[in-house]
C-alpha cells in the first residue's frame, strides 16, 4: 500500500487500520535502521517499541509537510540518538569508554553474522559521534537520498554532505589502521 493511501485511510477515520499498514510496511525496515545504529538487539527492540508508541500518539499531529517514511525515520532516529546520548552519559559516570564497549559487544554478539572486514567496519562506525553515525548509516547502508536525510535529521543538505564526508574518512582511516 502506498503512503498516501495509508494517510487517506487515517483521514477517513480508520486510524487503527492505517496504523496497522504503517507497522506492516515499516516495522522491519525501522528495526534494521535502529539495529545498525544501536548494535544490541534488545536495545533496538526497546527503541523500536518506543518509536511506534510515539508514532501512534503523534499520528493525529502528522502534517503532510513531510513524507510519511521520512517522518517515521525521524522519530526512530531521534529515539536512537536519545538512547545513545543516555548511554554515553552513563559511561561518563562509570569512567568507561562507550565506543570500546560497543566494539567488544559486537565482537562477542552471537547475533553478529559478519566476517572480519564487516566486524572492523562496525567497530569503525561505533567510534563515530551519534549524529555522524546516523548520517553514515542512512547514506551508506540504506542509500537514502540526501534530501530525505535532510528531512529526517533537520539538517541542510550541504551540512549533511560534509558530515558524511567526515564520517567516511574516519571509517576509511580506521580500516587502514586495521590493515585494510
Amino acid at each position, binding site marked *: 500500500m502506498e503512503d498516501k493511501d495509508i494517510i487517506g485511510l487515517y483521514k477517513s477515520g480508520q486510524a*487503527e487500520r492505517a*496504523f*496497522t499498514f504503517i*507497522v*506492516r510496511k515499516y*516495522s*522491519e525496515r525501522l*528495526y*534494521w535502521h535502529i*539495529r*545498525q545504529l544501536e*548494535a544490541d*538487539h534488545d536495545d533496538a*527492540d526497546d527503541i*523500536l*517499541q518506543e518509536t*511506534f*508508541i510515539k508514532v*501512534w*500518539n503523534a499520528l493525529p499531529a502528522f502534517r503532510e509537510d513531510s513524507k510519511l517514511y521520512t517522518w517515521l525515520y525521524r522519530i526512530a532516529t531521534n529515539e536512537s540518538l536519545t538512547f545513545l546520548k543516555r548511554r554515553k552519559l552513563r559511561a561518563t559516570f562509570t569512567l568507561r569508554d562507550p565506543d570500546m564497549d560497543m566494539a567488544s559487544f559486537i565482537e562477542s554478539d552471537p*547475533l*553478529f*553474522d*559478519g*566476517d572480519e*572486514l*564487516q*566486524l572492523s*567496519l*562496525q567497530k569503525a562506525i561505533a567510534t563515530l559521534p551519534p549524529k555522524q553515525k546516523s548520517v553514515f548509516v542512512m547514506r*551508506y*547502508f540504506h542509500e537514502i537520498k540526501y534530501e530525505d536525510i535532510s528531512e529526517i535529521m533537520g539538517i541542510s543538505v550541504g551540512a549533511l554532505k560534509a558530515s558524511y564526508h567526515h564520517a*567516511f574518512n574516519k*571509517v*576509511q582511516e580506521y*580500516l*587502514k589502521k*586495521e*590493515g*585494510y
Partner: protein
Amino acid sequence: MSKSYMNEQYNITDDPHLKSNPFKAPEGYLESLEERILSLAGIVQGEAAEEVVTPSGVWRRFGILKPALLLACTFGVIFGMGYGVLRLTGTLDKSPNGEDSYYAKMVEKGLIKTKFIDWIEEDLEYDDFYEEDQDFDEEEVVSWLATQYSSMELAQLYYDEK
C-alpha cells in the same frame, strides 16, 4: 576480502559485500514483530478509549483507587480470619492465666453489648419507659422512693421544693 592481498588503500564504496547487513535477528522475532507492536498500540488505544467512554472519569478514578481498595479488603479479610480463629478457640474470652477476661466479665454482667439483639432490646426498654400511656401506681412510686432515698433526703427535697 583478506588483508593479505591489499596493496592499495581499501575503499569501502568499492565493496558491495560490505553494504550487506551483518546482523541477525533472533529466531521468530521478525515474524512476530507486527503482532507485538499492534498489541502494544492496542494498550494505548484502550487507554484512549477509556477517556472517551467515561466522561466523568469515575471508572478511571476507580482504577486509581483499585489497589488501595484491594489492600483494604485484604486487611479486612485477614482481620476477619484472625478474629474468627480467636472466637472459635475462645481466646478472646480468657485472660492469659485461663481466667475469664475483664471483657468477658463485663459482657456477662450485661455492661457491654455484644449482640445486635441487645441493642434492639435496649431500644425497646427505652421506648416502653417513655410510653405516654404509662400509668404509675401511687404505692409503687412511694415504695420506689423509699428504696432510693432516706427519709432525711426526702424531707430535704420537700423543703427545697417549697
